[in-house]
């Protein structure tokens, strides 16, 4: 076991895969010699060669387009989109091409590529460096969308993604790159050092896609979260002294319905948390699934804690962010009713 930040864990996953499989390569804007604006590919070009870790033009549609062609031709490309906010020019290539190639060719061709991209706010990135667009991708059949919340899962899930025979969108909550975040931006930053999930095995291991992680077990209320909001949920549960079941989904598609159903049937109360905007957010899908499967076990209306239905503002970042206050209010509602 080694202490790693999430950045180091992500880099290590690529290093492990590139060492084991000559067909794995990575590319994106500023990814090569420089090692990426968040340093996730630092050192990979030096270690594995110019042709295996290289810079691309500023062209997200082009980056995903070549990744599809490479993947169809037997390679395992890992394409970096510098910020998830920049992914939209590639949307057609992801939604209409990568995700559908296996289906429309009835298995004749497939595109096993991995797309890595940082999501979420908390770094004063404003409208163009803070978005959480996961729901725009979970709606696409043929694509897997996953999001780790800690270094251990990040490495194991990224290796699973690279080894998956399907296209995988791997979202990296950038506020968690260097440490867990309790939602209070005024408290000093915490590093992954000393956190049990900052302990990362060396070499190859996988975290299977489609399995949620139980962050803590309780009987009073279910808190369903992913990415940054996992740690906000935990902090609020601590502060309120909740006996909470906290589920880190890790994988949105495929979704661990069993874990959700078992927990809500046990607690009868459910709060869903995400940083993305509220309307048609992934929380809407989760809420629908919970009421369809657990309606007669529910003691209170399902609560959603989300960002507001506005673009991610710059100066008002912490007013937008679904921080501890908003979570606490939702929990109180869920506990109060019935």
């Amino acid at each position, binding site marked *: 076991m080694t202490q790693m930040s999430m950045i180091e864990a992500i880099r290590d996953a690529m290093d492990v895969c590139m060492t084991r499989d000559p067909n794995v390569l990575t590319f994106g804007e500023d990814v090569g010699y420089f090692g990426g604006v968040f340093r996730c590919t630092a050192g990979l070009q030096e270690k594995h060669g110019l042709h295996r870790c290289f810079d*691309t033009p500023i062209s997200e549609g082009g980056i995903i387009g070549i990744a599809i062609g490479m993947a169809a031709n037997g390679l395992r490309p890992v394409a970096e989109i510098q910020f998830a906010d920049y992914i939209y020019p590639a949307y057609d290539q992801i939604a209409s091409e990568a995700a559908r190639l296996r289906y429309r060719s009835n298995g004749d061709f497939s595109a096993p590529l991995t797309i890595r991209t940082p999501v979420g706010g908390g770094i004063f990135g404003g409208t163009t460096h803070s978005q959480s667009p996961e729901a725009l991708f979970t709606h696409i059949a043929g694509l897997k969308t996953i999001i780790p919340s800690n270094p251990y899962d990040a490495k194991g899930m990224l290796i699973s993604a690279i080894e998956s025979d399907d296209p995988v969108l791997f979202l990296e909550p950038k506020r968690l790159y260097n440490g867990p975040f309790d939602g209070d931006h005024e408290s000093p930053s915490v590093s992954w050092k000393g956190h049990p999930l900052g302990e990362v095995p060396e070499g190859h291991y996988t975290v299977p896609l489609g399995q949620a992680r139980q962050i803590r077990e309780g009987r009073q209320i279910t808190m369903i979260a992913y990415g940054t909001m996992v740690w906000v949920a935990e902090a609020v549960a601590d502060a309120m002294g909740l006996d909470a079941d906290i589920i880190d989904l890790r994988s949105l598609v495929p979704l661990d319905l069993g874990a959700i159903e078992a927990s809500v049937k046990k607690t009868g109360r459910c709060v869903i948390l995400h940083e993305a905007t509220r309307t048609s957010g992934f929380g809407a899908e989760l809420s629908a699934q919970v009421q369809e499967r657990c309606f007669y076990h529910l003691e209170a209306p399902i609560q959603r804690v989300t960002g507001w239905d506005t673009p991610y503002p710059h100066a008002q970042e912490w007013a937008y962010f679904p921080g501890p206050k908003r979570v606490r209010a939702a929990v109180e509602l869920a506990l109060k009713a019935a």
Partner: protein
Amino acid sequence: MAKKQSNHATKPNRSKMPNRSRMHVPEPPFRPGDTPDYSHISVPAMHSPHRPDPMCDDHETAEHALKLIRVMRFNGEAVGEWIPAIDADLKRRMLTDMVMTRAMDDRMFAMQRQGKMSFYMKSRGEEAVSVGHAHALRNSDMVFPTYRQQGILIARDASMLEMMNQCLSNSGDPLQGKSIPVLYSFKKHGFFSISGNLGTQLIQAVGWAMAEAYKNEDGIASTFTGEGATAEGDFHYALNFASTYRAPCIINVVNNQWAISSFQGIAMGEGESFAARGTGYGLATLRVDGNDALAVYAATAWAAERARKGGGATVIEHFTYRAEGHSTSDDPSKYRPKNDADVWPFGDPVERLKVHLIHIGEWDEERHEALSAEAKKTVRETYKQAEALGTVDAGPQVDDFTMFEKVYADDPELLTEQRELFRRELSQ
């Protein structure tokens, strides 16, 4: 640089409303009711541009983007530096493939009109582009075609029965009804799954080619777009990445003058060359008479050699004419003169190769008649076999439950659930 050659005179506004604006909107030279006259398009008879070494500097092909590579004169004589070194057997094979492609198109179009399939797209007038191109590549080179290169499959000995089964979406459809007619996928014939979204495959082909280079293999990729979809961003991505990474590929623009009802001037303004798009990217550029199978072969062979030797990509504009509607859902008489195709000054590609073969004493009218009859017979008999396997709404059908398959490599839980819901829906 050679002087720009204008291919389209445009006519002013035909709307009942006078244009009160300074904004320019291009219009094709002829509309229904006009007498088309393409005398403004120069048909070079003897002066194809010089054939440079395939490993030349890309700038040496800048003038080729503005001229027109031709091999066959209308009297059948082959002239100039681009005459390909191919024997009469291969030329006859190309003619056979073109005749077969046309015969299959005609049959499938007629069967669509009888309701046997939902849709069809003919490639009439463009058979030399697909067939000539395919024969100049290796069968293992991956092509990323559009829906009008079915001639490549014929040239590569794909099973016509499987092609027809795909169009009929019947029980023998290799794609099990997942794609609309003509959007074939034949990996075993180096034929990439065709997307219905235009332009998207250009950049994928560049990625495929980069992977060939990455693996130290000498395969190349060849990708197609119509002139209309060169307006998509994907075209820019493809040319830019092909240039940056010197990808071993060929980027073909089939300029058949029409994108459904929009004439080529809508795609990028009048009088320009689509091949010239490549010049600014530092790519080699060739513009070829797409109704001249030997010229298509020669240009392709040049570009393939350049790509295979590490010289990078070539943009080839195949200058041709879409002799029929866009698809069975289209009626071209609504937007262009009925006899437009007949007066197109570059002739018919099948006729031109036939005339050439007769000119060199390797073919005659009787053999041609026999070939046409034989092609029709083969198509008719193959179609009979295909229809015995069902059509889109009659006879043996693809099992509906296959719609849940091949979404992912393994079935996610939610899809398994939905499959069960569908089972219940059927039993109600």
